[in-house]
């Protein structure tokens, strides 16, 4: 049976430009960020679940439950990127659910809620990290 996807084999015809010419907008950026944060969250989620599994089976051994890697700068940056992704995906997800319910799906309102999501993400990340670092 012939390959259903013949595009790669036969199609050398040019595509018109898209990402290279389209002006980035709040709508498109928030949308692709939702997907990117989702993928990153998935990877972190699998990591978190295996942290739970390994910690439990080693009786919360210090080396496993409190790995040194999260004390390093790079480790903390990775954690920070995951928490930013968490709060962004959470808030933007609520924005999506509001759209699904039928409200606010016009350019003006969507732009306002988009800015709210970004602002909220920064606020929530800052608050949670301040509490987690014990600065409060």
């Amino acid at each position, binding site marked *: 049976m012939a390959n*259903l*996807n013949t595009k790669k084999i036969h199609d050398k015809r040019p595509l018109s430009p898209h990402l290279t010419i389209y002006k980035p907008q709040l709508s498109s950026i928030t949308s692709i960020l939702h*997907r990117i944060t*989702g*993928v990153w969250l998935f990877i972190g989620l699998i990591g978190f679940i295996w942290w*739970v599994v390994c910690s439990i089976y080693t009786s*919360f051994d210090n080396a496993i439950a409190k790995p040194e890697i999260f004390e390093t700068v790079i480790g903390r940056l990775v954690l920070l990127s995951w928490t930013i992704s968490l709060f962004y995906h959470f808030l933007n997800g609520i924005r*999506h659910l509001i759209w699904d319910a039928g409200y606010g799906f016009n350019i003006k309102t969507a732009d306002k809620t988009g800015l709210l999501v970004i602002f909220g993400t920064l606020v929530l990340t800052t608050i949670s990290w301040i509490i*987690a670092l014990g600065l409060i």
Partner: protein
Amino acid sequence: MKKEKLSYQTNLAKVKALGSAKSGTHHWWMQRLTAILLMPLMVWFSILAIKIVTSTNLELFDLFASPYNSMGIILFIITSLYHAFLGIKVVIEDYIHCPKMKLIMVIMLHITCWISGIAGLLAVLIYNVTIFGAL
């Protein structure tokens, strides 16, 4: 008289298995439902994560022994894994064009989610049983 089912698909489209996959609406609704369920679970998980980070490993024993926390972790693992599975499945289907690779990656996604989910549930369950037996 045999009544023929009305279909607008051409014969070629039928043979190539084009058209709807029939489970799209279910996927869409499950994604939204898990999202709604994850709203309170997310708040709970954020608090748990802060507690995990700020407690010593001796305090972690008690944190995971609490039945409320265990319930929360199990509900969180199941719901977030299902939500993530639905999401990543769509991402794979969007960006992988080769049908063989698409199938392989979706199956690998299934395996990853199932193994991680069962491992997580089993660990929390065994921990609770052990703690309960030690009481």
